[in-house]
């Protein structure tokens, strides 16, 4: 349904947010993007929603290039429902839940915008997300985080989209509510045969809910393939490091806080230096200005990174070649591919 073909995105100031990204969300399938802050996953969402345009490369929807005109984009967006991270931010507190949920109908001029028919349609949506009998004239403030996210899902589904984009839909929710919301999304996807793009920083979660996972780092896809393979036997060292950074399941198996897992000099965990900070955080002969969080992100997504592996500076396995050459995507017969010269 949605395709990224060699898509790059420069923001003003020269920051390269996406660097030659190729992704494909098949019709009726599900694709998960996983990565840490600054990996480019949110930029992918913005592009897929038509909120930003790629600097180079091609974006396709149902086989056709994304429309350039506003009108064309609006028509395409009718096909896309989205659920964002923060249900406290994404719902207008001054609108009733009826108005919130039926907003896509008004924007796209669809039937059921108002009147008794509209009320019935909204009530139906509310029932579908587990809020049967909710007062249509209530405001979002009446609802907990989970309740608000249910309202956001009802809004996303009311225009009968063919694609559902979920950007960290559960990361601001309580643990006991998270799985309810994920199950609701999975059910909706199955019942309506939606194509789902699911974005999260949670490798465990993504491995459970989508068919195909793409692991992003520094604006690139470093590994992609069937969820089960990415979960059980990653090839790329970054995917492995992400796995290793997840806290253990039992105090007897603790890894992180028990003894320091040392990879590189000065590092304390599986990944040397946090993403934002990077190992280049404090330059050897550093000027303080170079240390800023944003600047440091630019440092590794900057022009220099184009001819090397983006993960080279933090990789336990890096060889000189990794810093001089960009590893191409290598495909395996089992459906996965990775960008690494020295895979696991």
């Amino acid at each position, binding site marked *: 349904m949605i395709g990224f073909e060699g898509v790059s995105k420069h923001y003003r100031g020269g920051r390269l947010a996406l660097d030659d990204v190729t992704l494909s969300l098949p019709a009726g399938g599900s694709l998960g993007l996983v990565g*840490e802050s600054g990996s480019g996953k949110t930029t992918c969402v913005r592009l897929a929603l038509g909120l930003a345009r790629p600097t180079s490369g091609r974006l396709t929807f149902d086989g056709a290039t994304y429309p350039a005109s506003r009108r064309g984009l609006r028509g395409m967006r009718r096909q896309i429902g989205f659920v964002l991270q923060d249900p406290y931010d994404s719902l207008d507190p001054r609108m009733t839940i009826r108005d919130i949920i039926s907003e896509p109908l008004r924007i796209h001029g669809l039937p059921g915008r108002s009147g008794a028919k509209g009320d019935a349609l909204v009530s139906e949506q509310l029932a579908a997300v587990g809020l049967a009998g909710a007062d249509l004239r209530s405001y979002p403030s009446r609802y*907990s*985080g*989970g*309740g608000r996210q249910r309202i956001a899902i009802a809004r996303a589904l009311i225009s009968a989209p063919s694609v559902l984009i979920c950007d960290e839909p559960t990361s601001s929710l*309580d*643990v*006991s509510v998270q*799985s*309810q919301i*994920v*199950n609701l999304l*999975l*059910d909706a996807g199955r019942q309506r045969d939606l194509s789902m793009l699911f974005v999260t*920083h949670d490798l*465990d*979660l993504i*491995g*459970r*809910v989508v*068919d195909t996972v793409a692991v992003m780092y520094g604006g690139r896809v470093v590994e992609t393939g069937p*969820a*089960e393979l990415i979960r059980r036997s990653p090839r790329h060292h970054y995917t492995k490091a*992400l796995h*290793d*950074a*997840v*806290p*253990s*399941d*039992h*105090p*007897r*198996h*603790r890894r*992180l*806080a*028990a*003894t*320091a*897992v040392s990879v590189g000099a*000065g*590092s*304390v*965990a*599986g*990944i040397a230096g*946090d*993403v*934002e*900070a990077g190992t280049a*955080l*404090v330059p050897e002969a*550093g000027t*303080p*200005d170079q*240390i*800023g*969080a944003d600047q*440091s992100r630019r440092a590794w997504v900057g022009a220099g990174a184009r001819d090397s592996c983006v993960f080279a500076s933090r990789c336990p396995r890096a060889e000189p070649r990794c810093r001089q050459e960009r590893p191409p995507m290598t495909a395996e017969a089992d459906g996965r591919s990775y960008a690494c010269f020295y895979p696991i």
Partner: protein
Amino acid sequence: MTAELAEREPALEVTDLNVRYGRMHAVRDACLIVPAGRVVTLIGETGSGKSSLALAAARLLPSSATITGRVAIAGRDTSGLGSGEFRRVRASLLGCIAQDAMAALNPVVPVGRQVGELFTQHAGMSRQQAREAAVAALAQVEIRHPAAVARLYPHQLSGGMRQRVMIAMAVALSPPLIVADEPTTALDVSTQAEILALIGELRGRMRSGFLWITHDMGVVAELADWAAVMYAGRIVEQGPVETIFDAPAHPYTEGLLRTRRDLRSGPVGAPLFQIPGSPPSPGEEPAGCAFAPRCSRATQVCAEVDPGLEPVRRDVGEGGSFGHVAACHHPVGRSAGASSGLAQGRSVEGQRP
């Protein structure tokens, strides 16, 4: 009091603590001990009262909160101290690590000076000495190039680095108690891993007791010696961390553990294990057990009688472990009166190593 005696005192002892905001009863009858040199995690969801409990212990709640009960830090009863008096001794009693380091740090003062102020104000150092001590404190939390970082402002640091600075400030004066309020929640998973490793290191070096608030069972597994679970303002279960993970007694604790285990190892595409329903909204005070509406083991008595914390005794498997308490009429692992559905699930779970 001699130094040796002070060391033997628990870092924190909270007895019958109640916190109210107007008519809202945020924390009810909480009792908790943080032994010196140990990490106690307080687990709970939004509105469970975990932050209120910890902030009450640290006396960081606004004056609109009504607090009753006893709080003793390193054997010193702080509930009796006036606010001015407490402010004078606070830095020597406890350090705090907040969730949002950006908000907790002063944006217009270089971080080195913020750390240094602790030494000039509470350790009687000169400015020059404090500057050196601040760089040493930053080095202690494994910040590379601490002298360069000391000159930076908070906005020039990444989230992980800011959290390290917060930790440096919390541990700078080696206070007996360190209160940490979800310090890794907003961080990337790899940064969280580093912070957890750092804390694991620090706890080996220090004698401070940590009261660590989290909602993440993974963080509990990595850090805790002792775990307390809060639900709707009450501590519903607490005990040694291995006991909590091996044999949780409260169905809510079991549900939290199962949610995470299922997420990590369930089959791709299968529905996730979920605890039905949602926590009571703040201010709601059910007559019986607050978890009863969401609990598959609940019976009539659960809706009517609020269960008190009782030592957990088992009639199957291992015996109760010291200090393990739970507030439940039908604790997990005790067959009598257990509803069949979850009891079966339990026996399957129980076969896992």
